[in-house]
């Protein structure tokens, strides 16, 4: 079963590479002329085209792209003059830190509301909780970010509005995850500064995820509550607390954890916007920078990287799901 799943992933990965490769070729006009601008001479255009291999037949170009991509080589960024992979790995920890903090925010908000709404379903509090979730999914996260910057950052001056750490604070980087590095090195001013810088972006990104997870938590719990074994547990005379904690929550959690894993895509989507709003130096912010200066190589590498992470995590969640619940066959 596992082998089938992995073999099935190969054509999808090839398709991803094909789509990413052809993105650059659907651009209207010549990307090299667009990149070099109107002042470039014909010789310069030809030279760059040759350097990029764009004077080769399209299939040769695709093969070159693919054979380099499997080795993690996406070429050099034109803006930064450094290998794309190096830039991605430099910025990735910031995005991971943001995504994980947002996940934590989402869990802290959604699980209690979702559980409570399901247990007290059809009550006023349930409707209020679901109304709140509806508000959460309807809030555009970039607007929420701007409003947080205006009110919490500007009007009340509670949190810094940009970056990852206060300018001037020295931090020895080991993992590039600032929260982890500051704890490892015992640098508490750096830790506090990193927490403050992460607060508003994590709330911005975590809110819409929290709204989705609240609804799923509620529906998963309601589903479990309708099962016969819950009736049996109650009939045995178990206390309501024991039924909820030992039987309902434990079974509903499988679905909730899976959904949390699958929401990584939503976090990656949101990270691009959130990082741009807060000038948070992650790979989402890097992608928008690459696009704005037409750094096609960097953009291509980043898009491939995003798709690869998303695909790999979804595959991993599927496999974990199968391990946790052996009834599920993929």
């Amino acid at each position, binding site marked *: 079963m596992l082998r089938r799943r992995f073999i099935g992933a190969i054509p999808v990965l090839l398709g991803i590479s094909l789509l990413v490769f052809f993105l650059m070729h659907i651009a209207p006009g010549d990307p090299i002329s667009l990149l070099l601008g109107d002042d470039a001479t014909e010789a310069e255009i030809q030279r760059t085209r040759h350097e990029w291999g764009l004077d080769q037949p399209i299939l040769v170009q695709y093969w070159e792209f693919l054979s380099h991509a499997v080795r993690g080589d996406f070429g050099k960024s034109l803006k930064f003059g450094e290998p794309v992979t190096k830039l991605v790995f430099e910025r990735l920890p910031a995005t991971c830190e943001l995504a994980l903090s947002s996940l934590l925010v989402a869990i802290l908000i959604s699980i209690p509301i979702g559980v409570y709404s399901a247990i007290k379903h059809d009550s006023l509090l349930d409707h209020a909780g679901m109304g709140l979730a509806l*508000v959460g999914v309807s809030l555009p996260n*970039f607007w929420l970010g701007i409003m947080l910057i205006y009110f919490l950052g500007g009007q009340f001056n509670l949190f810094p509005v940009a970056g990852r750490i206060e300018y001037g604070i020295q931090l020895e980087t080991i993992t590039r995850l600032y929260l982890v590095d500051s704890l490892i090195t015992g640098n508490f001013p750096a830790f506090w500064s990193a927490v403050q810088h992460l607060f508003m972006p994590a709330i911005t990104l975590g809110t819409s995820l929290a709204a989705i997870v609240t609804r799923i938590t509620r529906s998963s719990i309601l589903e479990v509550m309708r099962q016969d074994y819950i009736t049996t547990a109650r009939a045995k005379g178990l206390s309501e607390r024991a039924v909820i904690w030992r039987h309902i929550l434990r079974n509903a959690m499988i679905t909730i954890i899976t959904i949390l894993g699958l929401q990584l895509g939503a976090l990656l989507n949101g990270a691009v916007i959130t990082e*741009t709003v807060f000038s948070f130096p992650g790979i989402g912010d890097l992608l928008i920078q690459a*696009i704005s200066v037409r750094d096609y190589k960097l953009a291509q590498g980043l898009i491939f990287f*995003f798709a690869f992470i998303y695909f790999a995590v979804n595959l991993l969640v599927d496999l974990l799901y199968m391990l946790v619940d052996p009834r599920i066959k993929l």
Partner: protein
Amino acid sequence: MARMRYLKIWVGGAILSLLLVCGLAAPFLTPYDPQEQRLEHRLRPPSLGGQGFGPHWLGTDNLGRDILSRIIYGSRISLLVGATTVVLAGFMGCFLGALAGYFGDLTDEVISKISEIFLAFPFLLLAIALMAFLGQGLLNLILALMLTRWVQYCRVVRGEVLSLKERDFVVAARALGGRDFYILFRHVVPNTLASVTVIATFAMAIVIIAEASLSFLGLGVPPSIPTWGSMLSEGRSYMYRAPWLTIFPGIAIFVTVFGINLLGDGLRDILDPKLRGQR
């Protein structure tokens, strides 16, 4: 509970209808031309008029343009992009999903693999990538969003068709000599419309936020056309001096998306009870 469902549909429908009317009747409703620049009135706060200038209920921007007029005109783009994308993606996804589900075998394999490739990209990211390479423009925007949204319809319709094609009425139609395409589009696909309507409603809310996000990033329609996302992006530079530039377009996006989600919630509860409580 039933009353609650209808209330959601009524409130959501009312919000959406109001926005549609605003969008369609924009030239008659707006107090000013949305493009008219009056630098002497730049960055005026919301006011009912007086002190030598007319009323600007939601204030003016850095070029003296009326925010209310621009928001009303902006609704046109949001609704146009939202509705067109949802319809086009719906047609594409339903068609391919129906073919995959009904014919199975190689057709199903190919369509499923293509949809898996598209699903491998976080959808907004794919839209950002497509817009970055296609360039700004209304048609490109609709195309990019359509290419990222058809998969959801395809998957759901495929699943439903897989189950519907085994039902007695399809077997009967086949026994009476009905051709495959006739049976598929006359008998099978119409039975998936309830689910498709629910997906389409939620998809419209997602597309409107995506359009605003792309415009905010400068990857949507050209800057000459007022959109809520581009208004937010322009307003950011004056956030502390003129917060109304960012507050009101954001409220417009929120109210629209909230109304559509409310409508979607109500429709789902009535049309597709299996999906109740999910999103």
